[in-house]
C-alpha cells in the first residue's frame, strides 16, 4: 500500500471502457482469480483505483502488505481495509537514523501493529521490518499469536534482547526464516539459539551475523544438521574456522554463507578439512563474514567461488594483493562489497577479473581519516567502469574525485540505476581543477536515463541541482549533504523530478522558500528530511497549516535558539499526527 490515498474509490465507474460500450462487470470470482496473479503492491494500488468492485475485489485478495512509512497509515485503517493478510513489510525511521542523527526513542515501535495483527490476521506468516524498534514484548506477542508464522526479517532494528528471540525459537514450530541484518541491538545474549526444540527442523534461512551473541556451538551444530532444507546460513564472529567446517559438512547445499572469524591457528589436517568443506559447497552464490581474513586463509575459499555471484567483503579489510588473488577465482561475480583497503590497485583487479559485475560498494576503512590512508580515488572507479560495462549500482566512498573521471565513468556505464558517490570531506572540489563537482553529477543525470537513486557529494552549486531537475526524470531517491548555493537548488529538484519519492538533505543553504515550493509535491512523495539547513519554525508552521495531510515534525537540538528548525521530517499520512511522538518531536 504505497499510498493509501483512497478509502473509497471513484464512483463514476459505469462508463469506463472503450468508447461507447458500457462496461460489463466481471463476475467477482473471475476478477478475484485474475487478481490473485497481481503481486506488486504498486499494481494492486492501481487496480484498487479503477472502480468500486475492483477496489473490493482487490482488498479481499491482497495477502501481502507493504507499508513504506509506518506513520503514513494506522493499524486500524489497514485492518479495516484488508481482511486477509499473510505477509507484512513495514518500514519505520528515516534513513538518517542509521547514522545516529535521530535521538533514541524516536518511535517506529512495531508493537501497536502487532497488537492489531494478532486480532485481525491470525494466519500471518511473514513479517519484514526495517528501522523499527522491536521489543521483547513484541517478539513474545508475535511468537504466541500466529501459529503458522514462518518468516521474520529484521533489518536495522533495535530494542530486543535474547529473551524475545527465545520466545520466537520456542514457540514458532514452523519457522523457516530468521534473518537479522544490521542489528543495532546491544549485547544480545546467546541462549536463544538453544531454545529451538529438539525436533524443530524447518529452518531454511538463519542469519545472526550482526548479533554478538555467544551462542552454544553444539546446539548450533545440532540445529543445522536437523534442518535439511537450510539454504542460507550466516553466523557471527564467535564461530571459528574449524567450527564452520563442521557446519558446512552438515549443510553442503547452502546457497548463501556468512562465515565467522576467518583467522585461526589451524593444523595442516584442519586446513585440509576446511578446504575440502568449501570445495564441497557447489551451490554457493553468496559469501560474507570473513572477519580477520588474510592471505594465509583466503585460499581456503577458492574452491567455493566458481559459482559465486555475490561477494561481501565489507567486514574484511584486505590488501590489494590478497584481494586480486581471490577475485581470480570469482569470474561470475555480479555484486561485490569491499573495504577501501584494497585501494585503486584492488579495483583495477575488479575491472579485469569481473566482467559480469553489476553492483559495487566500496566502504571506508577509516571514515574519520585518523590514520591517513589513501583509500580509493577516481582511478579505481574508472578502472572498474572500463572493465565492467554492466555496472548499474555503485556506492563509493572516496577522498578525492574529478569531474572528468565521472563523466568518463558514466560514458562507460550508462545504465546506472543507483549512483551513490560519497566524497568524504564535505564540500570538496574536483581535486585536479578545484572546480565544483557540478559537471560530474550533471553527466550522471544526463547520461543515466534509468537513474532511480542518487547521492551527491563534494562541492556543488545550484547548477548541479538544475541538471538533476532537468535530466533525472526517473529519479526516486535523492540524498544531498553540504551542497547547493541557494533555495533555487532545491526548487529545481522539486520542480523537475516527477518521480521523486524520498528527499533527504543535510547541511545545505535551503530555506523556507525552497521548503514551501514543494508543498504540493510532498503529498506525492513518501517523505522529506531536512537537517541543519536554513528552515525556520515559522516556515514549517506555514507548511503544516497549508497541507493538513502532511505531518511536519521538528526536532530541535539542545541549546538551539528556537526559531531555527534543526531537523525537519515531513511525510504524507492518512493517519493524522503521531500519537506516540516523544516530547522532543514537535508536530506542527
Amino acid at each position: 500500500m504505497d499510498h493509501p490515498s483512497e478509502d473509497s474509490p471513484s464512483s463514476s465507474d459505469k462508463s469506463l471502457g472503450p468508447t461507447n460500450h458500457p462496461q460489463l462487470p466481471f463476475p467477482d470470482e473471475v476478477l478475484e482469480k485474475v487478481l490473485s496473479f497481481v503481486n506488486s503492491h504498486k499494481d494492486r494500488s492501481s487496480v484498487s483505483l479503477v472502480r468500486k468492485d475492483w477496489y473490493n475485489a482487490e482488498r479481499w485478495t491482497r495477502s501481502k502488505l507493504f507499508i513504506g512509512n509506518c506513520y503514513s497509515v494506522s493499524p486500524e485503517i489497514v485492518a479495516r481495509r484488508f481482511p486477509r493478510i499473510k505477509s507484512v513489510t513495514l518500514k519505520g525511521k528515516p534513513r538518517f537514523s542509521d547514522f545516529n542523527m535521530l535521538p533514541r526513542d524516536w518511535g517506529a515501535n512495531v508493537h501497536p501493529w502487532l497488537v492489531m495483527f494478532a486480532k485481525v490476521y491470525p494466519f500471518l506468516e511473514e513479517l519484514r521490518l526495517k528501522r523499527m524498534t522491536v521489543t521483547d514484548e513484541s517478539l513474545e506477542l508475535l511468537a504466541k499469536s500466529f501459529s503458522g508464522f514462518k518468516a521474520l526479517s529484521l533489518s536495522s532494528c533495535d530494542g530486543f534482547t535474547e529473551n524475545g528471540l527465545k520466545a520466537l525459537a520456542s514457540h514458532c514450530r514452523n519457522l523457516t526464516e530468521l534473518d537479522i541484518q544490521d542489528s543495532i541491538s546491544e549485547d544480545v545474549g546467546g541462549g536463544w539459539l538453544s531454545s529451538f526444540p529438539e525436533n524443530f527442523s524447518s529452518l531454511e534461512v538463519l542469519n545472526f551475523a550482526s548479533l554478538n551473541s555467544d551462542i552454544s556451538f553444539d546446539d548450533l551444530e545440532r540445529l543445522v544438521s536437523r534442518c535439511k532444507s537450510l539454504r542460507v546460513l550466516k553466523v557471527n564472529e564467535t564461530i571459528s574456522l574449524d567450527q564452520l567446517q563442521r557446519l558446512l559438512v552438515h549443510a553442503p547445499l547452502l546457497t548463501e554463507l556468512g562465515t565467522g572469524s576467518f583467522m585461526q591457528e589451524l593444523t595442516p589436517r584442519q586446513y585440509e578439512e576446511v578446504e575440502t568443506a568449501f570445495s564441497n559447497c557447489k551451490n554457493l552464490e553468496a559469501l560474507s563474514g570473513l572477519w580477520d581474513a588474510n592471505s594465509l586463509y583466503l585460499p581456503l575459499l577458492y574452491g567455493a567461488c566458481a559459482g559465486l555471484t555475490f561477494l561481501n567483503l565489507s567486514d574484511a579489510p584486505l590488501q590489494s594483493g590478497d584481494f586480486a588473488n581471490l577475485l581470480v577465482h570469482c569470474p561470475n561475480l555480479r555484486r561485490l562489497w569491499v573495504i577501501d583497503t584494497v585501494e585503486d590497485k584492488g579495483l583495477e583487479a575488479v575491472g579485469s577479473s569481473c566482467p559480469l559485475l553489476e553492483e559495487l560498494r566500496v566502504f571506508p576503512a577509516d571514515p574519520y581519516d585518523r590514520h591517513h590512508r589513501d583509500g580509493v580515488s577516481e582511478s579505481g572507479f574508472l578502472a572498474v567502469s572500463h572493465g565492467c560495462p554492466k555496472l548499474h549500482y555503485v556506492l563509493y566512498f572516496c577522498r578525492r574525485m574529478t569531474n572528468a573521471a565521472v563523466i568518463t565513468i558514466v560514458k562507460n556505464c550508462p545504465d546506472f540505476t543507483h549512483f551513490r558517490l560519497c566524497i568524504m570531506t564535505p564540500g570538496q572540489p574536483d581535486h585536479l581543477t578545484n572546480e565544483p563537482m557540478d559537471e560530474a553529477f550533471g553527466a550522471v543525470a544526463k547520461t543515466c536515463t534509468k537513474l532511480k537513486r542518487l547521492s551527491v557529494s563534494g562541492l556543488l552549486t545550484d547548477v548541479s541541482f538544475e541538471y538533476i531537475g532537468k535530466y533525472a526524470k526517473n529519479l526516486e531517491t535523492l540524498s544531498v549533504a553540504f551542497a547547493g548555493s541557494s533555495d533555487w537548488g532545491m526548487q529545481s529538484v522539486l520542480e523537475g523530478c516527477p518521480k521523486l519519492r524520498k528527499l533527504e538533505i543535510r547541511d545545505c543553504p535551503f530555506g523556507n522558500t525552497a521548503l514551501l515550493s514543494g508543498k504540493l509535491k510532498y503529498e506525492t512523495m513518501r517523505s522529506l528530511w531536512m537537517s541543519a539547513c536554513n528552515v525556520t519554525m515559522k516556515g514549517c508552521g506555514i507548511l503544516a497549516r497549508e497541507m493538513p495531510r502532511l505531518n511536519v515534525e521538528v526536532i530541535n537540538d539542545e541549546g538551539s535558539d528556537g526559531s531555527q528548525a534543526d531537523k525537519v521530517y515531513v511525510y504524507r499520512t492518512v493517519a493524522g499526527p503521531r500519537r506516540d511522538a516523544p516530547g522532543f518531536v514537535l508536530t506542527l
Partner: protein
Amino acid sequence: MENYEANGLNLKATELRLGLPGTGNEQQQQDQYSSSSSSHQQNVKNNYNNNNKRSSSEIASSCDDEQQQQHDDGAPLAKAQVVGWPPVRSYRKNVLEKKNPESSMFLKVSMDGAPYLRKIDLKFYNNYFDLLKGLENMFKCTIGVYSEREGYNGSEHVPTYEDKDGDWMLVGDVPWDMFVTSCKRLRIMKASEAKGLVSPL
C-alpha cells in the same frame, strides 16, 4: 605489496616533505573554505561551521566520535567530525580498530618536552610516510625529510625508536617490515639532542 620497496622510503623526495597540516594539497582545500570571494563556497563553509556549532552537543554525547580542536593560530579545522558524516553505520566505523589483540601493535610514543606519552597502533600504518605524518599530526611538530646520508638533518624533531636489543635507532634506516617487528617504543627527540644518531655515511 609491490609498493613501499626495500626500506620503504624510496618515494619521491617531495612526497616526504612533511609539514604541518595546512601545507600542500590541504592548503588549497582550506583556501576554498576560507575564501570569501565566492558566495557558494562561503555558504557551504557557513553551513559546515554552523552545523558544527549547532550539533556540538551531539558530537559531545555521541559515543565514539573524537573532536579535533581548532589550531591555536586560528587555522581552519583540518578534519572536524560532524555527526552522521560520512554516512557509515556505527559498526563500520571500527573496521580497523577491532579489539583483536593479534592484529594490533600498540606502542608508547614520547616526545621531548611533552608532559605525557601517547600510544599508537603500528598496524594502522603501511609505511614510514604514513607513520611520520601521523606522528606530526599527533604532536603538532615537524619531522621533516629522511635521507640515508643525513638522517633528519634540518628538522626540528627527529623520530627514534628502541629496538629489540634495547638500542636507540633512527626511524627509517631499516625496511618497514623489519622496523615493525623490532620496534618497542618511539621517542621524538629534539634535533639538538639527536646529533649522535645521524647516519654516518
